């Protein structure tokens, strides 16, 4: 058995955290080959070759793969699929875009957001906003799946895998990239941060979201948000934590002005320590918080920031 793992490459750099967590998830299934595809991908490939547990790295460096459009990347994976029993990727938005396409082209099912690998055919995954965990067994000859990175630790450093080139596949030429709107930030990345501070509708405005950001910066934390906060324009879309946003499991999660809807809990309830700050003592978030503080966020959060 052998595994082809799509490494997460953004602008030529490897997202080591997501990729190394995925390596740990699949390494029991066979030799792991990491595929690094991008307009520039050599340095990402080098970084991937050092992850413990990686047997081989394939680099597909071609302008075709520069913006991770689904069609060419899926065609590339399909062209390589013959050699592998398992084809996997960390469950990033890129992989969620690409892997179902790969599966359909291979006429197999896809399994999204796998949270545990039981054996070569059997996997666990959360369903119903994490209110149930399903154990599923696949009858397909090839298994195609994405991995919920929050459920795995990252593989360590110290590998020395061989790196070789993969030939580009024919471009289906169905879509073109136009532009990216990506905010640069010095803060840790949400899904790999050790600490996360999230704000909800209770924060009230884009301007007051600064209260959340100041606490986050004091803690060296990433900033998250509820859907309500994103929909209201207080925070950008890529900060959304939840069933349909990002899934996080940091050591510390601070929820401020968030009521605790099931869709939000689905994205953060595996955090080690949860703190909730809310003025409503009946808010459901308190049912899962380790430490709850009932109070107005506009006074308590600045006080907390100051006292840390």
């Amino acid at each position, binding site marked *: 058995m052998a595994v082809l793992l799509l490494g997460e490459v953004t602008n030529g750099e490897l997202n080591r955290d997501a990729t190394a967590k995925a390596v740990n998830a699949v390494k029991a299934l066979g030799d792991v080959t990491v595929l690094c595809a991008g307009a520039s991908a050599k340095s990402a490939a080098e970084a991937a070759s050092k992850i413990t547990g990686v047997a081989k790295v394939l680099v597909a460096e071609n302008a075709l793969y520069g*913006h991770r459009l*689904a*069609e060419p990347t*899926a065609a590339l994976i399909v062209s390589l699929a013959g050699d592998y029993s398992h084809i996997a990727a960390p469950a990033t*938005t890129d992989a*969620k*875009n690409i892997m*179902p*396409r790969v*599966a*359909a*082209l291979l006429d*197999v*099912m*896809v*399994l*999204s957001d796998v949270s545990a690998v039981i054996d070569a055919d059997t996997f666990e995954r*959360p*369903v119903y906003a*994490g*209110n*149930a*965990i399903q154990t*599923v*067994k*696949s*009858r*397909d000859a090839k298994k195609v799946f994405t991995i919920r990175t929050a459920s795995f630790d990252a593989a360590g450093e110290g590998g020395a895998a061989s790196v070789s080139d993969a030939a580009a596949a024919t471009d*289906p030429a*169905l*879509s*073109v*990239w*136009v*532009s990216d*709107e*990506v905010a640069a930030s010095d803060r840790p990345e949400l899904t790999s941060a050790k600490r996360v501070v999230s704000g909800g509708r209770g924060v009230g405005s884009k301007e007051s979201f600064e209260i959340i950001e100041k606490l986050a910066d004091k*803690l060296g934390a990433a900033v998250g948000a509820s*859907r309500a906060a*994103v*929909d209201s324009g207080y925070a950008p*879309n*890529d900060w959304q934590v939840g069933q*349909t946003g990002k899934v996080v499991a940091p*050591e*510390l999660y601070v929820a401020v002005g968030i009521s605790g809807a099931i869709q939000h809990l689905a994205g953060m*309830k595996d955090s080690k*320590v949860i*703190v909730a700050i809310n003025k409503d003592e009946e808010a459901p978030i*308190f049912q*899962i*918080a*380790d*430490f*709850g*503080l009932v109070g107005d966020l506009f006074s308590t959060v600045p*006080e*907390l920031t100051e*006292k*840390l």
Partner: protein
Amino acid sequence: MKVLVPVKRVIDYNVKARVKADGSGVDLANVKMSMNPFDEIAVEEAIRLKEAGKVEEVIAVSIGVKQAQETLRTALAMGADRAILVVAAEDVSTDIEPLAVAKIIAAVAKAEGTELVIAGKQAIDNDMNATGQMVSALLGWGQAAFASKVEIDGGKAKVTREVDGGLQTIEVTLPAVITADLRLNEPRYASLPNIMKAKKKPLDEKTPAEYGVDVSPRLEIVSTREPEGRKAGIKVGSVDELVSKLKEAGVI
């Protein structure tokens, strides 16, 4: 141009799913069911394209049990022109896998001659986030998943997508598949007169066999269990107490 919108009947998003005591699945008996929220957004987008004169006809399709008729009537009341129900299961607790669903949707798209499919990004029951991408692969079409803005012009769709780092805009040649993310639009409520009118709109019933699709599953659900529970902790009386508790817990 015709647009096809697949709509799924799922557990209402306000209901907390309960795992059956015998581990055989989630209890769906006497549970409120609704249209998957992402599909309401997809229907809304299709109707807006029609109102803007970009498409001529909006067709809603659902694959599942007979009761999915209600879901299709909702789509018709919102403004879809007609609906197709592909009856693929008898028991409400049988779900059809995305690959089979995608094969049926692809076959319907071909049979109806649609040039655009707008699906939801994810069904909130199984959270697979797969069907739209699979449909486009099966049809050999381009895909624009997780859309937060769609502009159709000159045989192309310019789509802004919600991605991990922020937003990405791509242009995809039609025919294509788009999947709707949360912030694409705010779906309308169906008015009472439109609900009455929807009862007279055409709703055809079909079977997977009529589209030549085998719906037998590739996956076997071995068991379903509750996630590890989390107990409520304590309430602290002040910010000072919170700080000292966090220190004790070793997280700051």
